[in-house]
């Protein structure tokens, strides 16, 4: 970025530093930061949160799923139903937020707040552009993992405080699932850290730029594992056993209503977007696109990648049926964890070979090809090892008992 004029929108940090400089001349020291923070908040809200969260998150998701399921989706409020999210928000705000008498009032009120705060904090380490990262800390990846382990406590508080059997079930399920899926998630990311040799997210983007390859191509298995684990942790639909409406009403949100519920709902999308942004940074090269970022603003590329990833979330949600609780657990421990370990081992081995033999840069492409092939092979082998046989999956409906599901003891013979 050679130009640093404030109107050069390829790098929005130019604009912000220009505003700060000018404010500094007018306002006293402490106030500058307050005003700047306000401006930044409003700007990022207008630029990112509003279009992303409200329109692509709510409207887009409903619309796309609708098309996937041969429906129209929202089409009544405004042209093409475009005002639907706003109508939803207004409805939620004016609704009464009920609190059951036997509930733990304080915890119930605090839970949505605890849920929202990490969703905002997560964005601090995500680089939107070359200079557009709020906190470029050395252990950014770890920071992301640490912060993303907080919302589960809010979920738990929500489930527990309702004093309702179903919400408690939901809370237990989500806690168990988070613990189960955290390990393969961290292991898969560890492999990427080993390959890139940095834990800073900006550093990872620079790595991708330097080697002209995405980490997701070098470690495709890690990408897949990350996607599935994050989908489970975020309670997205194929894995949303914590609020499975066909089993436990609405899970941990059973007793929630009004805007208290709305915060959970909105921030669910917020977390999914943050996870997508994180994946775009770590696996898809962030704001770089093989030199194209000189012409297109990096933050646009970044937002595009984020939504590409988010689209896959929507896609899986629209097409896949929900898994059973025990299936999901078994999947984590029997499938994801061993595969993540193998993947980690593979990547570290490659890294060691690379470091020891002192190969040149282009060698990474060979690794990428090898890894893609090996990933497919590993998944196939592991599926065979766990007894999955495509030819054995029946084409007709089966009884629960046949599918090795849970049968109440009274009816078993």
């Amino acid at each position, binding site marked *: 970025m050679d130009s640093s004029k404030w109107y050069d929108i390829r790098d929005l940090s130019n604009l912000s530093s220009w505003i700060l400089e000018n404010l500094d001349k007018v306002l006293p020291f402490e106030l500058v930061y307050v005003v700047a923070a306000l401006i930044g908040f409003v700007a990022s809200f207008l630029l990112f949160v509003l279009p992303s969260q409200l329109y692509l998150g709510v409207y887009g998701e409903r619309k796309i799923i609708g098309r996937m399921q041969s429906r129209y989706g929202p089409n009544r409020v405004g042209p093409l139903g475009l005002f639907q999210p706003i109508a939803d928000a207004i409805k939620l705000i004016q609704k009464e937020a009920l609190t059951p008498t036997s509930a*733990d009032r304080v915890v119930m009120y605090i839970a949505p707040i605890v849920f929202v705060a990490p969703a905002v904090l997560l964005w601090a380490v995500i680089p939107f552009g070359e200079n557009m990262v709020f906190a470029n800390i050395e252990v950014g990846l770890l920071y992301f993992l*640490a*912060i993303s382990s*907080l919302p589960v406590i809010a979920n738990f508080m929500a489930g527990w405080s309702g004093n309702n059997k179903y919400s408690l079930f939901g809370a237990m399920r989500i806690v168990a699932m988070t613990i189960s899926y955290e390990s393969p998630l961290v292991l898969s990311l560890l492999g990427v850290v080993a390959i890139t040799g940095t834990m800073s997210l900006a550093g990872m983007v620079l790595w991708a730029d330097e080697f002209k390859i995405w980490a997701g191509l070098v470690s495709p298995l890690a990408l897949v594992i990350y996607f599935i684990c994050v989908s489970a942790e975020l309670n997205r639909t194929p894995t949303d056993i914590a609020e499975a409406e066909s089993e436990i009403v609405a899970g941990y949100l059973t007793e929630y209503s009004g805007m208290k519920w709305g915060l959970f709902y909105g921030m669910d999308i917020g977390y999914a977007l943050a996870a997508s942004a994180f994946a775009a940074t770590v696996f898809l090269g962030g704001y770089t696109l093989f030199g194209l970022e000189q012409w297109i603003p990096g933050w646009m590329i970044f937002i595009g990648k984020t939504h590409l990833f988010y689209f896959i979330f929507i896609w899986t949600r629209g097409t896949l049926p929900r898994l059973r609780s025990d299936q999901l657990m078994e999947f984590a421990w029997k499938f994801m964890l061993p595969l993540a370990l193998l993947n980690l081992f593979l990547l570290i081995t490659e890294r060691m070979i690379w470091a020891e033999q002192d190969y040149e840069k282009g060698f990474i492409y060979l690794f990428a090809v090898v890894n893609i092939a090996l990933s497919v092979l590993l998944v196939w082998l592991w599926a065979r090892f766990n007894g999955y046989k495509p030819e054995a999956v029946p084409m007709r409906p089966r009884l629960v008992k046949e599918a090795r599901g849970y049968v109440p003891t009274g009816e078993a013979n």
Partner: protein
Amino acid sequence: MDGFGPVAAFWVLSGLTLVSAGGVMMSRNLLHAVLFLIVTFIGVAGFFVLLSADFIAMAQVIIYVGAIAVLVLFAVLLTPRAGRDNAETKWALPGMLLAVCLAAVFLFVIHDTSWNTIDGDPAEGSLTAAALGNALLDTWVLPFEIASVLLTAALVGAIMLTRTPEEEAEDALS
């Protein structure tokens, strides 16, 4: 450490940490106590950041908040409602008195010792995650391996402890 930022952060964090630690002590409801405990953990993580130990701070949040606190929540839920109070035993009063005495001793030692401290910030790069990794896999490799053995043993032990008699009978059959 000078400057408005660190000083303010220190006072805020120490207030947060100590008050919520007191909350663990005071709250009657075991679950509230756990929630206070989580706040304490996060406060201590804040202290770590203040002491330029970023990696440890993140590890603290992941392990204590993400794992241990969640485990405690789990354990609270697995013991039925009757077991969820957080009352004191008859040893409460002497225990607190002793703790106060101990605190007095500690404070006396802290303030009467002339600490040999460095001025300013620690050396660049000496406290980073990379340095920590090198130290763990070089000088401390043996304790590192032993720790992994300990974790495995704890894992197996925890699984064995919580098996129900029915599960054991099932395993014996198969």
